[in-house]
């Protein structure tokens, strides 16, 4: 299940080009993060991955996005809901059901699944996101982290091979972020899922990403793994973006004390820095 973005440009009906000539191919099972300043086009790109852009939004479009051979211009959004699951920043604007179970079942009901298959999928999704004990609860009684996990469960229940998350941690407090982190870890290790995450939090990005796509005014400015992207702190700052603190530390030490350090995650920073003291 690959995502093939070819020369893709998009403009909203009354606006400028929000995405310009994007060329990008996402491999199956990859964890790709999208970074960019506010307004760079992250959300628009996310919405383009299941056909909402352009089918629900109109506007001008050039180039193509094909998701496993299906062109986003030519198949209904509902058809893509089976391939691509999308979770948005604000759970308030996604969750509406009476119970957690009902919320997860909603998408499956829309697809006309028979009841037995539905029950199985609901159980599976509850387990995957570790929210089984919350089954009967009303979404309004859940914490931020729990709601975000519910939102993920309710789209994954539809068995897409691709999960798109648009700034999932923006509305979460530290404990919610922790829950999101754990959920992403579980999803990544469970395998079989291509994950695309638009985010500002560089430390969250560094934790999981195979590659990072940086958008700048709608263009693809960079596409590389976190290790190389975050190593050049000045370049990231010039793009208006931050890097994990440990990367900043590594860059600072390299510059001022001629070390040769490289780190994007806490653990590797610790490992490489404590080693500097090893006697030769």
């Amino acid at each position, binding site marked *: 299940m690959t995502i093939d973005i070819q020369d893709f440009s998009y403009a909203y009906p009354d606006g400028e080009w929000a995405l310009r000539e994007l060329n990008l191919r996402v491999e199956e099972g990859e964890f790709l993060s999208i970074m960019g300043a506010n307004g760079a086009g992250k959300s628009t790109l996310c919405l383009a991955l299941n056909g909402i852009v352009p089918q629900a939004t109109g506007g001008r479009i050039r180039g193509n996005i094909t998701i496993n051979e299906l062109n986003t211009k030519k198949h209904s959004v509902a058809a893509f809901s089976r391939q691509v699951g999308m979770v948005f920043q604000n759970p308030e604007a996604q969750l509406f059901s009476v119970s957690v179970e009902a919320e997860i079942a909603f998408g499956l009901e829309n697809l006309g699944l028979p009841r037995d298959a539905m029950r199985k999928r609901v159980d599976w999704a509850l387990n995957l996101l570790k929210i089984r004990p919350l089954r009967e609860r009303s979404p309004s009684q859940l*914490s*931020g982290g729990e709601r975000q996990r519910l939102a993920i469960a309710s789209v994954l229940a539809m068995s897409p091979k691709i999960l798109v998350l648009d700034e999932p941690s923006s509305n979460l407090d530290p404990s919610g972020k922790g829950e999101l982190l754990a959920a992403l870890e579980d999803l990544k290790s469970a395998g079989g899922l291509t994950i695309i995450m638009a985010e*500002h939090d560089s430390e969250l990005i560094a934790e999981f990403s195979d590659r990072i796509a940086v958008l700048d005014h709608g263009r693809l400015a960079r596409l590389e793994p976190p290790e190389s992207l975050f190593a050049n702190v000045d370049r990231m*700052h010039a793009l208006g*973006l*931050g890097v994990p*603190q440990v990367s900043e530390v590594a860059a600072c030490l390299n510059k001022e004390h001629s070390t040769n350090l490289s780190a994007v995650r806490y653990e590797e*920073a610790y490992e490489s820095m404590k080693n500097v003291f090893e006697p030769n």
Partner: protein
Amino acid sequence: MTEIETQNVRFSYSNGEDVLKSVSLRIDQGEFVALIGQNGSGKTTLAKHFLGLLRPREGTVMIQDEDIAGKAVGEVARRVGYVFQNPDHQIFSATTMHEISYGPQNLDFDEDEVSEQSKHAMDRFDLTAYADQQPATLSHGVRRKVALASIYAMNPQIWILDEPTGGLDWRSEQETMALLHELNEAGKTIVLITHDMRLVAEHTERCIVMSEGRVVAHDATRTVMGQEETLKITPPQTWRLGNALNLRPLPLTVKAFCQEYGKKLATEREIDVRRS
């Protein structure tokens, strides 16, 4: 002068349980203090008392040594500026200029002052280009600036900001923090409600930690970070790394880490050189 003082403030909403259980604290003029705590700890509720949006069931709230019990919110707003988390909760005008001048007008600034303050605010936040546009149609980042400018135009002495950097990119975050430092250097008192421990470590001198309706810590940021386990906070990476590598003093910022580690490195290299 004591800028903000609360004495035994107790507060509950009409349906029962105490959200604030007896909060007494003092914030002095010119402080730049972080107000942190988990969701539900009462930090926003407490902050709203500083403006008089909420009134305590027991206890007193004093702003600049005056009890605000009898005062209307509008009156307290002359001294306390409160920037809400969601800029869309206040944007309503047909033009950005009008939006920003709404506050000063309500405070009965005279016409010239209103126009001067508004223009100054728009300048400061680079919004002059948007003066005649509908603020609701502008992008999220710009709307946040409009919200900040709206309070800036009221020129309050005390600033309270509720999660001003949520969902912002790095550059906008830096700009916002630079604004706060600028205000602080001009003598304003800043109370920053935030979850971002990195920002707390890098920018604030003191920290108030709340839990379950009580103040559980009110000290220098450094001291508060040191109590991470009891207070259940997660310090930023530089602090944790510094702790793991036994750097003393523990670094709150990247720069400090660099310095401390660099010193240690230099010492180690000297030892190496001497050995060989």
